[in-house]
């Protein structure tokens, strides 16, 4: 399905800003400092939680 160009640009911009500042997630709302999380093998901060990190399907 075709999306308006302005919408795609807005998503792109949001991702770019998030990559610099960290996206507004439930982690931030609970004041979990993602930057001090345990690093992964490649040195990136390890995610603590996220919107897609959910238990819902019963074997997660």
């Amino acid at each position: 399905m075709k999306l308006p160009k302005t919408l795609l640009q807005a998503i792109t911009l949001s991702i770019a800003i998030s990559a610099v500042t960290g996206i507004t997630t439930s982690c931030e709302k609970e004041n979990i400092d993602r930057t001090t999380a345990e690093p992964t093998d490649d040195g990136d901060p390890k995610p603590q939680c996220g919107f897609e990190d959910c238990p819902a399907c019963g074997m997660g």
Partner: protein
Amino acid sequence: MKTSQSTIYSTVACNLDQHLLQATLPLFASEKIEAIEWSFDTLFKVKNIPDWFVELLKTYSQANRLIGHGVYFSIFSGKWSEDQTNWLRHLKKTANHFKFDHVTEHFGFMTGSDFHKGAPISVPYNQSTLALGRDRLVRIYDACQCPVGLENIAFAYTLDEVKQQGEFLTKLIEPINGFIILDLHNLYCQLQNFSLSFDTLIKAYPLDRVREIHISGGSWEPSDVHPTRNIRRDTHDNAVPDEVFELLKLSLNRCPNLKFVVLEQLGTALYTSEQQIQFQHDFDRMQNIIHQYLKKNTPQISNTFLPEIKSSLSLEIPQNEELAQQQAELSFILETAKNHSDAHEKLRQSSLASTDWKIENWSAYMLETALKIAQKWKQGW
């Protein structure tokens, strides 16, 4: 029977997650994503949804290609909670704002003491839970006023439970003329964990009631109580296995009312560019399978999945105190037991012993898995 020509939409589970959006952006830009599934109850900690995300939802909604997927309602909780009342209120408001083509929830009850903590676990299939589940589904329909469905659960304690889930789902959705999500990775977990054949298990599901299919990846976990067996878990944190794509090929022509096939993956499993590219490949592969099928077949949908008769709702919401007590006891045991043996012993002495829960028949390696799931999610996410 009245039928209408339809198609099958290649869909992604799309939520407000930076890495998931990074992975899906090239698919949006190349106009491949035909519909999106949004877990409308997962933004409970966010005060303001960004305008562009609202616009994304509205764009798909206006094309009748937005579907809602709840996570937290916990349809089988014996005790009704204020959080469930609020959940329905939120759904009603959301469904007025964004038109959903349908709304779905998960089978089971959530183990956590907090509404947003815990994991779904199965319940006994008896008249009492059937009545409770039916009532809750009518309330969901009353709130959203669109077709309502339930997803098959991956977890089961016994082979009997696996074989009976399809029949129980059929009975549950009957009053609302509802549908089911056939999650093929959940099915794959059951095939692997209980050594079943696809042909045997698929016959146990009401395939004419499938309006949505899910595919996703998962992981293997070794079992201490059954060292020769690895347990397949629906963790949504890996690429879709070849076997699940094969299950999709086998399922398409068996589900005459199918409308959406959804690729699900956790944003936390899409951190690297390699993972994101793999996700895009998985979507392309899924879409290619669907398009190949559609070249030779024209789906004729024969069911609106809207209730034929409006069910009445009692002002007093049905509850089951005995079930609530058993669920609280089970949740506590699963969340605190040191290991399988400890859990087994505590269950033997609990109010669940010698009841429809049939704890005496539970597979040791699946009880061990239940402990791992409950303890993973007891602090929420």
